[in-house]
């Protein structure tokens, strides 16, 4: 009984707080937007993370599920966009897989020039096959046993050799992820190429919301280069096996035991997908 009465007051307080936050945000957006407009930087103002947080606070209070009946996200097949802003609604959408599908399948098939990658799949046999196989290849314990010790040792060495001054992006935060690509994934290629391929493909999958035709063509060209590299690299590894405890060798071990999804093509597509979606640590390439 007391809890029920308390909930009434809590609900009223939460609703007032929501509206209050929305009104403060509206004021911030109007005042800040006008100032940015006068200074000629309105685009930059609305791209700032702080501005976007205010915009979402405004929506949560006044238009929690804003529907836009025209195509805004040109990279995905759609007829309109609904912006869902409240936590409970967002969780609801994310939990209803059959009603709200993941969107990456179409572009993932373009990158592989064929099959989907598990990130773009709905729950089902293909998804279960690929995630199960790749969880055997990239083991849960690898983070503590391989990735962390290797990254720590490498980072310690780079910092120790820096002489007290370091250009952190090229020297450290680009080097360590590429080293993981090379030593843990077992397919690093050359650092310059791998960074460019994977960064471009990540952008194409996740950030090309306006479907830029020119840059999209660059991305598909680089996807072809990455496919060619991986196909040749897998063939070379099979011709000259190693005993390195990397993901490629584990995939090939699964292939030799007839694990579903672990054909050469399946391994290549899974590696291509993993490399592309993990590249967020790399900056956008100059070509884009």
């Amino acid at each position, binding site marked *: 009984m007391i809890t029920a009465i308390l909930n009434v007051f809590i609900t009223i307080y939460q609703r007032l707080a929501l509206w209050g936050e929305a009104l403060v945000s509206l004021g911030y957006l109007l005042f800040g937007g006008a100032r940015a407009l006068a200074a000629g930087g309105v685009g930059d103002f609305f791209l700032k993370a702080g501005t976007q947080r205010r915009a979402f606070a405004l929506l949560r209070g006044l238009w929690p599920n804003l529907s836009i009946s025209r195509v805004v996200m040109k990279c995905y097949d759609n007829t309109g966009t609904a912006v869902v802003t409240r936590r409970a609604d967002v969780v609801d959408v994310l939990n209803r897989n059959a009603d709200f*599908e993941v969107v990456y399948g179409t572009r993932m098939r373009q990158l592989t020039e064929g099959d989907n990658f598990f990130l773009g799949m709905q729950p089902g046999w293909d998804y279960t096959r690929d995630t199960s196989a790749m969880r055997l290849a990239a083991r849960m314990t690898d983070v503590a046993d391989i990735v962390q010790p290797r990254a720590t040792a490498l980072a310690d060495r780079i910092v120790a050799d820096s002489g007290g001054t370091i250009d952190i992006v090229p020297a450290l935060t680009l080097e360590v992820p590429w080293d993981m690509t090379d030593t843990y994934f077992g397919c690093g290629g050359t650092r310059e190429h791998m960074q460019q391929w994977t960064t471009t493909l990540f952008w194409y999958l996740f950030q090309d919301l306006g479907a830029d035709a020119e840059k999209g063509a660059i991305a598909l060209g680089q996807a072809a280069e990455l496919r060619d590299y991986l196909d040749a690299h897998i063939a070379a590894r099979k011709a000259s096996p190693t005993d390195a405890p990397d993901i490629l060798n584990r995939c090939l071990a699964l292939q030799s035991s007839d694990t579903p999804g672990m054909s050469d093509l399946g391994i290549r597509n899974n590696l291509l997908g993993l490399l592309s979606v993990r590249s*967020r640590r790399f900056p956008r390439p100059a070509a884009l």
Partner: protein
Amino acid sequence: MDELLNRPDALATAQKAARADDDALLAQHCWEALRFNPFNPVLYRRATHDT
């Protein structure tokens, strides 16, 4: 880094954690900073039918 640089107090405690080799506390600073500027602030889904 932007979010920590915008908050000198948080940057100072992050640096202190790093110098003390307290990875857990440093990680807390990083994750908290990411909340202010997530790399991918919007998740997309496609509705398969009218809702």
